[in-house]
């Protein structure tokens, strides 16, 4: 089975290796270019935050933001697109291509049982996907470390910004995409519709969990800031730039109810202002790895459910 699995997936494996090499080389090149740029900025610019407005280094900071800041989006996008490609090019064909070409009747009539065929193919391909995802995550972390190092000069960047390329979730996304592709292929039994279903399903799961579930894995910490003479000042902890702000600032009255904008304290009335405070909800930076684990577990559980479904479909397929 291992030979057959290799023979059927060697082009995917070679493409993944090539892609990883290109990404790795890209990170190395960016690190070299970035440190050169940073050295130049350090020589020519006054310290941050005046640097941004200093005319002597405007072109340098523009080069920085043009090259490195816009890249955030590309990297986060790659952290979503590459796992989806795993589902499309590795997961879907595993069953769908066989069913489409009738070769399932060839391989299921050989001396391996259908159960062994399915389990060993999924296991072998799964190991390959995990290895690839670990390598990709390592490349991603190298890039993220480089990027944070460069950006630190402008002000610290939050670890939360790299949540989507964190190793636990990136590996879990890849396993989930693989399982989704296998299950869609086993259910639909035709490659092209199964690819479409895999893409839609992956993006739907990925985005809905990121937007709806992730901010509430643990109840966010609420920060209250009273309104004083120098503006809002919080009594206890308040979110820093390394925390993840999940709820924006809301003005509340004394009883904790939100005040509609522009609807409070008409005119100078100190009594009124003393009642008002600002409310912010945030996830602190030390929850980052806990959140990574929670999201990874969610995707891996979904992957296992999908694989169980695919197994049942394959065992009943004719």
């Amino acid at each position, binding site marked *: 089975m291992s030979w057959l699995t290799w023979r059927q997936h060697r082009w995917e494996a070679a493409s993944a290796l090539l892609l990883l090499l290109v990404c790795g080389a890209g990170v190395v090149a960016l690190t070299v270019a970035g440190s050169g740029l940073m050295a130049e900025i350090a020589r020519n610019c006054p310290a941050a935050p005046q640097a941004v407005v200093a005319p002597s280094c405007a072109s340098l900071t523009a080069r920085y933001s043009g090259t490195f800041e816009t890249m955030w989006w590309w990297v986060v996008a790659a952290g979503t697109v590459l796992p989806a490609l795993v589902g499309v090019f590795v997961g879907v064909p595993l069953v769908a291509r066989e069913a489409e070409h009738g070769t399932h009747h060839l391989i299921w009539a050989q*001396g391996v049982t*259908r159960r062994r065929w399915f389990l060993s193919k999924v296991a072998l391909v799964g190991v390959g996907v995990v290895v690839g995802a670990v390598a990709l995550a390592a490349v991603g972390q190298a890039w993220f470390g480089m990027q944070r190092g460069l950006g630190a000069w402008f002000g610290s960047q939050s670890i939360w910004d790299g949540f989507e390329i964190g190793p636990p979730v990136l590996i879990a996304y890849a396993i989930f995409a693989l399982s989704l592709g296998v299950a869609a292929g086993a259910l639909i039994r035709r490659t092209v519709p199964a690819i479409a279903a895999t893409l839609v399903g992956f993006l739907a799961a990925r985005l809905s969990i990121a937007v709806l579930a992730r901010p509430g894995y643990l109840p966010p910490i609420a920060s209250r800031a009273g309104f004083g003479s120098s503006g809002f000042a919080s009594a206890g902890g308040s979110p820093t730039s390394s925390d993840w702000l999940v709820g924006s600032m809301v003005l509340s009255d004394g009883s904790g109810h939100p005040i509609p904008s522009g609807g409070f304290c008409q005119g100078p009335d100190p009594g009124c202002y003393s009642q008002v405070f600002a409310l912010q909800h945030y996830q602190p930076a030390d929850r980052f790895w806990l959140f990574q684990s929670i999201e990874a577990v969610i995707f891996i559980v979904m992957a296992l459910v999908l694989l169980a479904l695919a197994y049942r479909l394959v065992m009943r397929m004719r």
Partner: protein
Amino acid sequence: MRPAIETTALGKRYRRNWALRDCCVQIPGERITALIGPNGAGKTTLLNLAIGLLTPDAGGIETLGWSPQRQPELVLGRVGYVPQDRPLYSRFTVADTLHMGRSTNPRWDDRGARERMHKRGIALDLPIRRLSGGQRAQVSLALALGKHPDLLLLDEPASSLDPLARRDFLAELVDAVAADGTTVVLSSHVIADVERVCDYLVILADGRVQLAGDIDTIREEHKVIIGPRFERDVASADATVISAEHSERESALLVRRDDPAAPPGWRIETPSLEELVLAYLSNPRAGALPAPQLAESAAS
């Protein structure tokens, strides 16, 4: 020798249509059995059930004495199967295909499979998609024979082959199985092929077994009685009339009885296999009873 395939009230349903129903048949070992029947009679369904690609909806099936569904690990390594459309991985080369056979079958005969390809002039480095229909059939057969099977199942093995390729294929098949006494079950539409290759016959109609038995015995059991034309159908008490044909001057009855008493002026002939098969196929209700020979051949 236990039966190659034995079914008891076997049924298989596709949505609401029964492809096989109450199918009871015992296909003997060490024989070459032909599975004959019109399209949709359930031939492919029976073969797919026998290799475990399908699961019965009623009754049971045993292949070489094991359930192909519950004990696939015992059945799959011992049974070679060539499906009707002869699926092969089109991106593989011939060598890859044989490598697949080697890595998925416990009793793989690599030298035999390579020699078979060499003998047919099929280069091992050829991609499957570049093979002709006849060559594909040969590769499929080599893959099934390479398993060194106790039982070989072939679904319409000669279909879509030109007459020459068909002759070569069947000759190859007979050569290959004669040496080790491999049991073969093949479905076919072509009675000439059956006559050339097979010695046991199962006729399927409407998902049931219409007739099953040794071909020579079946031929001896049936007679054609030819006499002057008569108008009404004969319902004879001591012979089962399978079919009656009336020409302008003569009537011919195909009856199931090995020593029919013919009225004076009638003559008795032994039917050809083709006549016999066509008589049954054109009269699906005839012989719906289990063939009497079956019990005897099973006991022997």
